[in-house]
């Protein structure tokens, strides 16, 4: 039992670190977002190009399509090292992590030639269009429809919670092509040009006040049958491949953790509160639980094993943990805790900011409840939930 790299892993880590040091500055708080959104996107594109040219863009992809032909463990190591620098990576995570692998798995040779290299070099950005207002956890119940018209399909409907839709060039779009079969069987996946006529992107005004996600409306959008990924009706299978490709979370906690609230308590002189001390211990144990469970996953990866659905626990722990810490920090500040103005709020308002993010984290990418179902069904082998629509056609249920 140790925390050391194998000699091969150490060699790769050194190589990755050297490359990063050559191109980026070590992480400093706030540096990434200074300069505004447009500037961030340009810097992200430039960094993606640099990575691609250096052979670090997609570590696990085969060399033939521009990857490194490396291991998942190397990808984890790269993620750890990249996180030590001010690397603008966000805009490519979904495209390269989920969408383009789906194109590689189900697209034609022309698709691969047309899209893969440009995505890898950061010249084109992709988004994923699955969720809908009436299809969140039950995404297979989606309603956006595609009707065949000659060798084209005509798309009408609405997607929601689409990260990066406003700056994306292409998307993978899951739609209903046959309502007269059970919901999972009537879906088809397409590549969609996000800049074409009939595609309208509207930012969502989130409960947190920000506008990071979008609604996407499709009005008589025409897609060539050639841009279909997989056979008609096979869309759910294709979507599962997309979701399987979800990147291994390599980052740390998404907001203030035990250390930040301890620092605040010390500065505020409230460390002697026994109730607070007991909770601080719980937060440390949860944070360690999250971090160390990832180490166990990495150990499995390092041995060439594939981690299973047990990874769902990370997000359950993390999101609730963040919400609890922020709530406690605010209550510790008493009436003053209500202030979000960074000039007045303690700790630059990090607790107040994450307090409003935390509810979203508990929902995005699988709600707490869905993740618990995944653990119960796929890890513990408990029966599936009752599905009253199981043997009914989509049309019958809607």
């Amino acid at each position, binding site marked *: 039992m140790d925390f050391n790299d194998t000699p091969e892993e150490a060699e790769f880590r050194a190589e990755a670190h050297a490359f990063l040091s050559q191109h980026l500055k070590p992480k400093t708080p706030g540096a990434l977002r200074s300069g505004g959104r447009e500037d961030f996107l340009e810097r992200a594109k430039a960094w993606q190009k640099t990575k691609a040219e250096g052979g670090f863009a997609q570590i696990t992809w085969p060399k033939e399509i521009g990857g490194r032909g490396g291991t998942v463990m190397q990808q984890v190591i790269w993620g750890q090292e990249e996180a030590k620098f001010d690397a603008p990576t966000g805009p490519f995570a979904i495209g390269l992590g989920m969408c383009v692998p789906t194109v590689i798995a189900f697209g034609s040779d022309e698709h691969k030639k047309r899209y893969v290299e440009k995505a890898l070099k950061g010249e084109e950005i992709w988004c994923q269009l699955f969720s809908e207002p009436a299809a969140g956890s039950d995404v297979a119940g989606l309603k956006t429809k595609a009707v065949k018209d000659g060798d084209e399909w005509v798309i009408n409907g609405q997607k929601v919670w689409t990260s990066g839709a406003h700056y994306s060039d292409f998307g993978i779009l899951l739609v209903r092509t046959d309502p007269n079969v059970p919901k999972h069987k009537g879906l088809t996946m397409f590549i969609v040009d996000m800049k074409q006529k009939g595609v309208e992107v509207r930012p969502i005004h989130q409960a947190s006040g920000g506008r990071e996600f979008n609604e996407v409306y499709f009005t008589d959008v025409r897609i060539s049958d050639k841009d279909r990924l997989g056979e008609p009706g096979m869309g759910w299978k294709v979507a599962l491949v997309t979701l399987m490709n979800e990147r291994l979370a390599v980052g740390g906690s998404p907001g203030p953790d035990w250390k930040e609230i301890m620092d605040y308590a010390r500065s505020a002189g409230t460390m002697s509160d026994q109730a607070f001390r007991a909770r601080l211990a719980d937060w440390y144990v949860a944070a360690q639980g999250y971090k160390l469970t990832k180490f166990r996953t990495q150990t499995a990866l390092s041995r060439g094993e594939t981690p299973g659905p047990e990874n769902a626990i990370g997000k359950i722990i993390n999101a609730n943990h963040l919400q609890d810490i922020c709530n406690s920090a605010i209550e510790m500040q008493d009436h003053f805790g209500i202030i979000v103005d960074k000039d007045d709020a303690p700790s630059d308002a990090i607790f107040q900011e994450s307090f409003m993010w935390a509810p979203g984290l508990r929902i995005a990418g699988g709600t707490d409840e869905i993740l618990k179902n995944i653990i119960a069904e796929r890890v*513990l082998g*408990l029966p599936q939930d009752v599905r009253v629509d199981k043997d009914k056609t989509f049309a019958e249920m809607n």
Partner: protein
Amino acid sequence: MNFDFSDDQKFLRDEARKFLEAQCTMAQVREVLDDDEKSHNAGVWKQIVEMGWLGAAIPEEYGGLGLGMLELCVIAEELGRVLAPVPFGSSAFFFAEALKLAGSEEQKQALLPKVADGSLIGCIAVSEGPGEIKAGNIATRLKDGRISGTKIPVTDGDIATHAIVLVKDGSGESLVIVDLSQSGLSREPIKTLEPTRSHATISFDGAAAELLGEAGSGMALLDQINDRAAVLLAFEQLGGASRCLEMANEYAKERVAFGRAIGGNQAIKHKLADMYVKNEVARSNAYYGAWALSSDAAELPEAAAAARVAASEAYWFASKENIQTHGGMGFTWEVDCHLFYRRAKLLAVQAGSPAVWKEKLVSALEAKND
């Protein structure tokens, strides 16, 4: 990154599990539960002694197997799974570790081989009354090499042959080793929440005692002994918590209500998923404790405390919700759920309750981040 046990250690785990599932069944645990005269299961104990496990982490020069702390962690988890009704923890986690940590060469030579071969059963006698034991509230006195006072409760105190006792002496607090076969003391078994592990009141009246470590170093030594034992107890707790989840899971798939297995209801599914999450958090923290323990890392105090806090929470939750999942059946004497609920509580308060360990953890974090 190699944050896991080795193949050899996993082999040991598999062998231990096979052995204990065959030789230490719930029927054997119940022999102790249902018989007030029985302090432990002598047959199971004899076989465990013969396996040499008591000496797993005792160096070969002192008669042990000389395997290491990770191997002892593996064994602890397996003993926890079967609720082994034997004084293993008292002898191996506390007594032997205390000697390894603070014993003189002579003491180690004299006593460790006997722990390893089972001819000596060790225990630790600290508590004297309700609440955390602290430097100021110890009544047991050491004077001229003899001790007087009462320790209650002492886990495995009625079957142990030797005890490490926390005492007050002129220069502060000290730890002493006491041979329990002598006449200057009396022992009385006491009833506890956990009848499958025996407990006693030990009254010392001029019993001969020899110092373990420096005079006056008692509290500091006790802290270090508890840090080591905490990691091992965490594995024992983890074993029990894992069994609770397995029991609840099996029952939820079998038990039919309203026309389907109750495990198909989200109220049960999510409860069991919560158990799983807590158990995994406990497992990860326990592994870190094992790493710190086996590598003599400076991080041991916070690693041990985190392992202990996580394991106590996981076992508490799993043992109570296992009963709940079993419904009325779970509240019967015949169904085993209550045995885990009992053991969970003993292991949570032995060597300091969760509140004590949380405070230790936060103090360690404060010291580290000064």
